[in-house]
């Protein structure tokens, strides 16, 4: 356990240790830009968190507990925005501020410069928050769906019998019970927002992440940059601790694990239309709009004379694809082991290890990449010469992905475990089964759905991953993401739309498969 966490956190520790060293620029940063970075980061985190709750929780509730026209299609379509990388969504949504230029000019002419600057800022921040929320809300939606679906009918009906309206039953019974899931989902969203670089830079909203790169690469002060990265981890840790504190000593135990499934309430007329609209808006913003835009650009590209000349070899892309697949499977297996180890003997220390192992998700990919480079570079230097070099191989990238994304299987299965609670496990142990057998025969089957889902999510996330892949990849190694990035940095938006659409297509298929697994798993109530 300690060994594994050690291996996993070595690069993060390498970063943390160097934070304590003397920094030349720290005071200068604190006096000049730190305040702005923090404010921007918090504004984005709060804005996006609120929006993802709206876009994630309500549709999840409607889709799992009500029946209306289009419900079945929407229930899976609502996941699809997760297939759109934020750096691609940024290009698409930046069309907004650009399209607003004539309006802005009008405002400037009629109401003066101050009104203009205010309008400009509202449009830009608003669109950035909307865009981030529109592609990230599925984390919350997914977590809520599985939480709502497994809430036994008994609880909701008890609430109804006590005189609650459906809305009150939702607010008083369903929502509090889904809390671990909602929190897990929002935590993932917050971490994504905090370490985003491309989108915030493009929209001119510098956050702590931009500060990290600017300080490190522009000023050459690694220590100050790492301290900024440390603040980012701190922000996440504080938010999570806050939630834990608010939750107090409450524990979540499934009252009736095999309970009677919920029967969906049929909706009709205006109610059905409203439900449909509430569910369709997030999909339209986070998936349909970007896909339509990208398809339009890709179409223009193929119509032009340059069409088809740039595309990297299928072999290179195949390797990127294979890497994502293998890493997703391995990381999920590792996470299962890790959870087992933590569960084996719960202690403060082990739970702390669990937190640390998940921190990679809140760290910018480039920072992780550097930590990994340091560790493997040192390893190669001290290793006996007959051993092959590790640096520059796919193993390094795979390891870095694990570090970066370990929180996904951890969070998803942790929420699952909390809902399973201890009774089943204690029963098994009382029957004399050893811990490993208990884990394999009791916990693991119950965790199969969250783990499979996590694996698929990992696959999609790795496929979209950019900063870490760019730094660590072996020579002549291209993924769809790096190809899209190269074209975008040349501002060849039309050509860029082709690999971007491919990422979206593969990601969307992956997500649908994941959803299918979740639906047919033994822990979810399936009644199609």
């Amino acid at each position: 356990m300690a060994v594994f966490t050690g291996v996993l956190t070595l690069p993060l520790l390498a970063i943390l240790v160097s934070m304590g060293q003397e920094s030349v620029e720290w005071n200068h940063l604190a006096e000049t830009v730190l305040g702005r970075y923090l404010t921007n980061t918090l504004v984005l985190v709060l804005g996006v968190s609120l929006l993802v709750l709206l876009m994630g929780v309500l549709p999840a509730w409607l889709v799992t507990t009500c029946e209306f026209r289009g419900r079945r299609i929407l229930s899976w379509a609502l996941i699809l925005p997760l297939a759109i990388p934020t750096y691609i969504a940024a290009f698409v949504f930046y069309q907004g501020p650009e399209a607003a230029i004539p309006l802005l000019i009008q405002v400037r002419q009629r109401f003066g410069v101050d009104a203009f600057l205010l309008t400009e800022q509202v449009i830009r921040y608003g669109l950035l928050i909307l865009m981030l929320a529109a592609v990230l809300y599925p984390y919350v939606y997914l977590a809520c769906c599985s939480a709502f679906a497994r809430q036994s009918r008994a609880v909701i009906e008890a609430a109804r019998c006590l005189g609650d309206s459906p809305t009150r039953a939702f607010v008083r019974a369903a929502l509090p019970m889904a809390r671990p899931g909602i929190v897990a989902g929002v935590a993932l969203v917050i971490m994504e927002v905090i370490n985003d670089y491309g989108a915030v830079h493009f929209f001119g909203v510098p956050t702590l992440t931009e500060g990290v790169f600017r300080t490190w690469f522009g000023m050459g002060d690694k220590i100050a940059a790492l301290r900024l990265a440390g603040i980012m981890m701190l922000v996440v840790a504080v938010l999570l601790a806050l939630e834990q504190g608010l939750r107090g000593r409450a524990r979540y135990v499934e009252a009736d694990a095999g309970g009677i499934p919920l029967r969906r309430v049929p909706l009709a007329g205006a109610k059905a239309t409203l439900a449909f609209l509430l569910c369709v808006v997030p999909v339209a913003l986070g998936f349909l709009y970007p896909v339509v835009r990208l398809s339009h650009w890709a179409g223009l590209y193929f119509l032009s004379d340059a069409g088809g000349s740039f595309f990297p070899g299928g072999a290179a892309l195949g390797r990127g694809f294979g890497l994502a697949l293998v890493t997703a499977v391995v990381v999920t297996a590792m996470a299962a082991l890790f959870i087992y180890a933590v569960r084996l003997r719960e202690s403060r220390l082990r739970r702390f290890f669990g937190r640390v192992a998940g921190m990679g998700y809140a760290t910018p990919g480039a920072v992780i990449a550097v930590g990994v480079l340091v560790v493997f570079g040192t390893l190669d230097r001290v290793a006996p010469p007959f051993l092959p070099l590790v640096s520059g191989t796919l193993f390094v990238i795979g390891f870095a992905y694990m570090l970066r994304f370990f929180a996904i299987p951890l969070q998803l299965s942790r929420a699952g475990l909390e809902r399973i609670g201890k009774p089943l496990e204690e029963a098994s142990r009382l029957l004399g089964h050893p811990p490993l057998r208990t884990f394999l025969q009791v916990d693991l089957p119950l965790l199969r759905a969250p783990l499979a889902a996590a694996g698929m999510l990992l696959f999609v996330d790795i496929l979209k991953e950019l900063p870490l892949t760019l730094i660590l990849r072996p020579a002549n190694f291209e993924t769809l993401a790096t190809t899209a990035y190269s074209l975008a940095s040349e501002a060849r938006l039309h050509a860029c739309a082709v690999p971007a659409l491919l990422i979206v297509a593969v990601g969307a298929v992956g997500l649908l498969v994941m959803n299918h697994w979740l639906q047919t798993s033994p822990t979810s109530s399936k009644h199609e």
Partner: protein
Amino acid sequence: MQKRLLFPLLAAFAALFPGGSLRADDELTLYTQRHYGFDDTVHQRFSEKTGIKIKVVKAAADELIVRLQEEGANTPADLYMTADGGGLDRAKKAGLLQPLVSALVEEKVPAHLRDPDGHWVALTKRARVIIYAPDRVKAGELSTYEDLADPKWRGRLVVRSSSNAYNQSLLASLIEANGAEAAEAWAAGVRKNMARPPQGGDRDQIRAVAAGLADVAISNTYYLGLMETSNDKKDLEAAAAVKIFFPNQEGRGTHVNISGAGIVKASKKADLAKQFIEFILSDEIQSLYAQGTFEYPVSETAEWSENQKRWGTFATDQVPFSVYGERNAEAVRLFNKAGWE
């Protein structure tokens, strides 16, 4: 118990990823910041001519420096290439490059565009200019970079974020020319004159001028070249609505950034690497770049593209590029103080 499971799994993980291919003599590995699809064409030409294959790792300049440092003597890299001069200087300071001795380089590349110790050499140039809307800016109104801080431009100027290396090296050139105090005042003045907070890339600034949001933008010329030859109708219209002005022609000349390369210290193929650099400096490839990426050739005998000829000739700032590398951190500090995001 868990260790028994852990190690086989780790081993399986490792076995899935075979190491990189053994180093062959007919291969060169490039660590490059340049993300241009056009570079592949040049690499292919080199391979056809010499039989040497080019392998590439593309990432940001300073990320590649970290990678070179950590890989040390084990690095597969032979050449380090950037799209901005500052990175080359930092790689040299980190002791990652080795000197290159070549008569051809000395003949083709002006002294201020290469390292005095031969650790790196410019391969192409990019001019950072003023792009303006001719219907709203009179020709006599524009003069120097310094003038852009004048209150007459209040609310009329757009420029990208100061995190961008081109802006950092422009400010470094102003520190060199006028001193730190004046440079900070300049950055603050320009920030006040901005029509909107910095956002997007150079191309988005050109679009903003074309759309009428601002009257002038600071941008590299090649972005305009790419827009002029784009297959996007919007790009063509925007490019047609603006003009290029080369600042400081009366004085020290227009600020020019470079894209260049150096041979990695740990490389055992310095001869092949030199061959590659000399190939890129040949007039044929130099003018190919002028047409493909609209960067300016460093070789004076290479032909410019039609677009570049139309923009016109200009005098360039002759300060040795290494100076900008040294002043980069100071430039970022001044940007921070001036509030230019």
